[in-house]
C-alpha cells in the first residue's frame, strides 16, 4: 500500500493532469470534423505516456515513443496520399501552418504587418495571432518544441533511435557544421524578405512533395528544387539511420537555430553537475543534436542547441545531468507526491500537453484514416 502511495498515485495524478487539458483542447479541435472519441483516444495516449514516464522515470524513452507516433501520424494523415488515393485523408485536408516557416519568413511577416497597420487594415494586422502562438509556445517550452512537438523532429528522432550503432562517425565534421542552420536562417531571412517569398518552403522543405509550390516557368529551376528536396529528404530519413544523430534538425532546420536563440526566454535547462561529471564523454556520444561540447577529461558543456530531449540523462552513469530551472540545482525528489515538484515533472507536463494539443491537428484524424482503411 505504501509503495502504491509513493509511486502509483502520484503517477496517476500526473497522468490526469496531462490527460485533462489534452482531452479538452483536442476534442474542441476535432469535434467539427470527426468523432469526439478519436480526440479522447489521443488524450488517453498522451496521459499514458505521462504516466509511464513519471512512474518509471524513463523520460526520454517514452518521450521518443510519443514524439515518433505523433510524427508518424502526421505522415499518415497528410503525406501517404501521395502514394495512393487509398490513403486520402478523410478530414483536415490542409496541413496546419508550419512552425518552421515562421523563422525564415519572419521579416516578411513583420513587413506585411507593418503595411497592414499603415494602410489601416486592422483586420489583417495580426501580430497577436501567429507570433503570439509561437511566443506562447516558446515561453512555455522553449527549445523543447524540437523534442516534443515538431513533426519533422519526430521522424528524425525516431529513426536515430533505430540503429544499434552509428555506421558513420560524424563527430569530426558534425561539430564544425553545427552552426550551419544559423547561417541558413540569416540567409533565408534576407532572401525571403528580398523576394517576398517563403524561400525555404520553395527550395528546401522535404515535405513539399506535391509540386504545387514549385516554380513552373523553368524546367531547370524545378529540377534544382526537386534535387534539393530529395537531398533534404535523404538528410531527414537516411541521415539518422546512418549516424544515429538527428541530422535534419542539426544541419538543415532554420527553426532549430531560431529556437536556440529565443529558447533562452524559457526557464527549463539541462544542467551538468560539475562535481559528478567525470569527463567520460558518454553524453557527447548520446546527444543526437551535437549539443554537448567537451574535451576528453573535462566537464561537459551544454550548448544552446540542446532541446531538452533527455537522452544524455540516461547516458550519464554518474547521474551528473539533470533538468533544472535556469540552471539552479535543486534536490531531486524520487518518490511520493513531492516528485511532482521536480523541474523534470514541470517540463514533461508543459511539453507533453503542448505537443499533444498541437498534434491534435492531425493525430486523431490519422486514427480516423486508419480505421476507415481497415473497414
Amino acid at each position: 500500500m505504501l509503495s502504491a502511495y509513493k509511486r502509483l498515485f502520484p503517477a496517476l495524478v500526473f497522468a490526469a493532469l496531462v490527460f485533462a487539458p489534452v482531452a479538452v483542447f483536442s476534442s474542441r479541435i476535432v469535434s467539427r470534423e470527426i468523432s469526439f472519441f478519436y480526440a479522447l483516444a489521443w488524450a488517453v495516449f498522451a496521459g499514458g505516456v505521462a504516466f509511464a514516464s513519471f512512474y518509471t522515470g524513463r523520460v526520454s524513452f517514452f518521450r521518443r515513443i510519443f514524439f515518433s507516433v505523433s510524427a508518424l501520424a502526421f505522415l499518415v494523415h497528410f503525406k501517404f496520399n501521395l502514394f495512393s488515393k487509398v490513403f486520402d485523408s478523410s478530414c483536415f485536408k490542409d496541413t496546419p501552418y508550419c512552425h518552421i516557416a515562421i523563422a525564415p519568413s519572419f521579416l516578411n511577416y513583420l513587413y506585411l504587418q507593418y503595411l497592414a497597420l499603415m494602410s489601416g487594415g486592422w483586420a489583417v494586422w495580426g501580430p497577436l495571432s501567429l507570433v503570439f502562438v509561437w511566443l506562447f509556445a516558446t515561453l512555455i517550452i522553449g527549445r523543447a518544441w524540437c523534442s516534443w512537438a515538431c513533426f519533422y523532429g519526430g521522424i528524425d528522432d525516431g529513426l536515430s533511435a533505430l540503429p544499434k550503432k552509428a555506421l558513420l562517425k560524424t563527430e569530426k565534421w558534425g561539430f564544425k557544421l553545427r552552426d550551419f542552420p544559423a547561417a541558413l536562417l540569416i540567409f533565408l531571412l534576407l532572401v525571403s524578405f528580398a523576394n517576398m517569398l517563403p524561400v525555404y518552403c520553395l527550395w528546401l522543405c522535404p515535405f513539399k512533395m506535391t509540386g504545387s509550390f514549385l516554380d513552373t516557368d523553368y524546367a531547370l529551376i524545378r529540377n534544382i528544387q526537386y534535387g534539393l528536396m530529395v537531398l533534404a529528404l535523404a538528410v531527414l530519413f537516411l541521415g539518422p539511420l546512418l549516424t544515429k544523430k538527428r541530422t535534419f534538425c542539426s544541419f538543415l532546420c532554420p527553426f532549430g537555430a531560431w529556437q536556440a536563440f529565443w529558447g533562452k526566454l524559457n526557464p527549463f535547462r539541462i544542467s551538468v553537475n560539475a562535481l559528478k561529471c567525470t569527463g567520460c564523454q558518454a553524453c557527447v556520444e548520446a546527444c543526437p543534436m551535437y549539443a554537448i561540447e567537451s574535451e576528453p577529461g573535462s566537464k561537459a558543456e551544454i550548448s544552446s542547441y540542446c532541446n531538452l530531449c533527455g537522452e544524455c540523462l540516461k547516458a550519464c552513469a554518474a547521474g551528473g545531468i539533470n533538468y533544472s530551472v535556469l540552471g539552479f540545482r535543486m534536490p531531486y525528489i524520487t518518490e511520493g507526491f513531492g516528485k511532482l515538484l521536480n523541474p523534470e515533472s514541470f517540463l514533461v507536463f508543459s511539453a507533453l500537453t503542448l505537443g499533444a494539443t498541437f498534434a491534435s491537428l492531425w493525430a486523431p484524424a490519422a486514427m480516423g484514416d486508419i480505421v476507415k482503411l481497415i473497414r
Partner: protein
Amino acid sequence: MAALFSEGFLLGLSTGAYCLASCLPVLAPYLLAGGGLSWKINFLIFIEFLAGRFIAYTLFALVAVSLGKASGPYLPQRALAAGMVVTALFMFYFLFSGRLKKHAPCLASLPAAWAEKRIPFLLGFLTGINICPPFAAGLLRLMGLADALKGLAYFGGFFTSTSLFLLPALTPTPFLGSRLKRIGRMTLFLAALWYLFLGLKGLISLP
C-alpha cells in the same frame, strides 16, 4: 535647396524598405564575415559599401541628366545578370582568397589583390547598378529639375534616408566573435551561391 533635400529624404523614407530588401542580402553577410570587433571598422565597411552604391547611383543620375531622359541609363538585363554573377564571384573570392594565395602565392600581386581590399565598395557598386523602383522614381523627379546642384540636393536627401534603412545591418557586429564570424562566412557562401544562381539563370534565360 533644403526643400529639395527633404523631398528626396521623404521619398527615401517611404520607399527605404526596398533598399533594405535589395542591399541587405549582400551587406549583412559580408559585415558578419568580414567585420571586426571594433565598431569603427564595421562602420568604415558600411560607409565604403554606401560609397560604392552612391557612385553607381550618381553615374546613373549623370547619364540620365546628360541624356535628358530617365529611361536612358537603364542597363540591359544581360548586364544586370552578369553583375549578379560578378557579385557572387567577389563573395567567393573574399571567402577563399586566403586559401587560394596559400596554394598560388603569385595571386597576391594580381589586380585581384586590390579588389580584395575594396570588396565592400565593389559590392555596394554592384548592388547600386541594379536599379530599384524607388531609385527609378527619384530619377524621374531628377529629370524635371534639370539643374545639377538641385539634383544633388534632392538625390543627397534620397540617399541619406535610404541609407538609414541599412543601418540595422550593423546591429550584430559588436557581438562578432569567432563563432558569429564563422556563421557569417557560411551565410556569405550561401548568398554567393544564390546570386550566382540568379545571375546564371538571367544569362541563360534571356534571348
